[in-house]
């Protein structure tokens, strides 16, 4: 069929071979060069694999704990994913994951869905978190101190009752407020709305831009002048200004700091959960991982991530 035809066939075969070759080579190159001794029957959990999906607020904790856990027991496999509390609940109810990370309690619709699918949602509290309201530095540049807002004022800003910063308070720039919110399944959003919107019968304005995670929210506020948003405590950065919050306009206004959340004075605080379908089977990988997160070592990791531990750290 001619040299050229042979050349073509060779190239195609090479490409296909390259792909198929990866099947053979990859296990050899893979990083999983673990132990080779056999386990007894009741250590099935050691070679098990679980999937942990959900809240992007809990994600750093889950990630760090999974890394540490698999260092200690390196034949276990823990798959971590974000996607928001909504995704976590959705996958748990759908049987697609073993643990759901959540920064809120389940919604009514999720409870119904769970009942329909025969799933019992058990919430394990693993940490306490605060929600910080953040603004771009351009908002506070003319103020002498921090921006003090009540829960209701914050709600009205997000609802679009105020369209410019100058309407909120004297001394703020005469610029349009750019509002960022989280996606609809977000636990952070749920807690935020529970404190700042629902009590006042407010809804977030349609012109608000939805971002899909805590880091995305932080970056959006960092990069957009005159913007406002909210993040979990562990995602504050030096490039955004945190709003000091009070329940009443008479104050006192509290900053979203570790101490204020721990002491219970900061108004926007909540629990972080890991959720399972029923009580995890004793000794299973799911059970052991959640126990690890609640253990002193796990709780130290919680604090390293910027959250507040619930259980003792020693």
């Amino acid at each position: 069929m001619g040299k050229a035809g042979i050349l073509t066939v060779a190239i195609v075969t090479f490409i296909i071979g390259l792909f198929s070759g990866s099947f053979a080579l990859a296990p050899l190159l893979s990083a999983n060069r673990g132990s080779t001794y056999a386990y007894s029957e009741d250590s099935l959990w050691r070679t098990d694999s679980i999937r942990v999906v959900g809240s992007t607020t809990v994600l750093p904790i889950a990630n760090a704990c999974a890394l540490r856990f698999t260092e200690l027991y390196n034949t276990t496999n823990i798959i971590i994913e974000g996607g928001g509390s909504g995704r976590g609940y959705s996958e748990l109810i759908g049987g697609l994951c073993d643990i759901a990370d959540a920064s809120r309690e389940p919604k009514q619709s999720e409870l119904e869905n769970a009942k329909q699918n025969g799933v019992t949602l058990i919430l394990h509290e693993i940490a306490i978190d605060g929600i910080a309201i953040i603004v771009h530095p351009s908002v506070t540049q003319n103020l002498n101190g921090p921006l003090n807002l009540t829960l209701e004022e914050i709600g009205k800003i997000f609802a679009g009752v105020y369209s410019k910063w100058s309407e909120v308070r004297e001394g703020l720039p005469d610029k349009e407020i750019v509002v960022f919110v989280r996606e609809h399944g977000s636990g952070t959003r749920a807690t935020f709305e529970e404190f700042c919107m629902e009590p006042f019968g407010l809804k977030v304005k349609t012109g608000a831009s939805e971002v899909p995670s805590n880091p995305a929210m932080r970056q959006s506020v960092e990069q957009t002048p005159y913007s406002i948003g909210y993040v979990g405590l562990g995602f504050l950065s030096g490039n955004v200004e945190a709003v000091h919050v009070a329940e009443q306009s008479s104050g006192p206004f509290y900053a979203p700091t570790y101490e204020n959340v721990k002491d219970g004075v900061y108004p926007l605080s909540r629990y972080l959960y890991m959720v399972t379908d029923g009580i995890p089977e004793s000794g299973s990988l799911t059970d052991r991982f959640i126990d690890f997160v609640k253990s002193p070592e796990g709780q130290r990791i919680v604090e390293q991530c910027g959250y507040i531990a619930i259980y003792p750290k020693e």
Partner: protein
Amino acid sequence: MRLKHPKFLCFKDKAGSFSFILASISIIILFLIIVFVLNEGIPAFIELGFSNFLFGHRWSPYYGDFGAFPLLYGSILIVLGSLAISVPLGVFTAIFLAEYSPRWLSNILKPVIELLAAIPSIIYGFFGFMFLAPKIMEFLDVSMGKVALTASIILSMMTVPTIVSISSEVIASVPKEYRKASLALGATKWQTIKSMVLPAAKPGVIASLLLAFGRAIGETVAVLMVCGCVPQIPSPPWNYLEPVHTLTAAIALDMGEVSWGSLHYHVLFGLGAILLVITFIVNMIADFFIKKAPRGVQI
């Protein structure tokens, strides 16, 4: 008396019937796609009411508002914007390639244009999100860089190759006699093109525009990263410097976290159904024009 079998079932060897079975899988796949998307999407239309869903003005899944109109509007807005850029650009380049470009230049341009079409959409999104959006925010003094204009520019980059490749082939296959006759009568090259070649090529060019439309309206990832994802009709409605949201971006963003079988889940499939209907109609119209195009055109 011979029994009459349908012609396509008479095979002389088994290989024929075997490949027939495999070939019909294509039809089955298409059929399944339509069935499944419609099946999962129709409950949304029923529960929300057809016009409430399609023409509802508030898209706010958090509060249970599922009005798809802002999404539909956003999709069409950015696609029309992209056509406004890619049509002149594409048609001119096609004319250039078919009529004026020297061989060596064509040999560079043609692969480059094919590559533009082949670049993955996430790379376009990356480019738009990291490079184009900040530049637009800077140069046009808007509060956010992720606006309808950005999405339109990125979409035009992605769909121009479709217009160029089809149009240039169509133009090139206009019979030489037309041109020779025109030149013989004393017309200049451009007059020939304008009055003789282009009108003859018109059906094919229109088809390429429609295909570009279809491609653009179905684009997901690139749009998701640059459109701003604000489900609101800009004010005024032709303001390209405001963020918008599209059908595709809404599906992609929300799909990960809907519970299977919930209303939100069905709503997303409903959006998919709307998208499917639009693309089918556009493709059908494009097909109609292709058939009228000069011979020898392959899409």
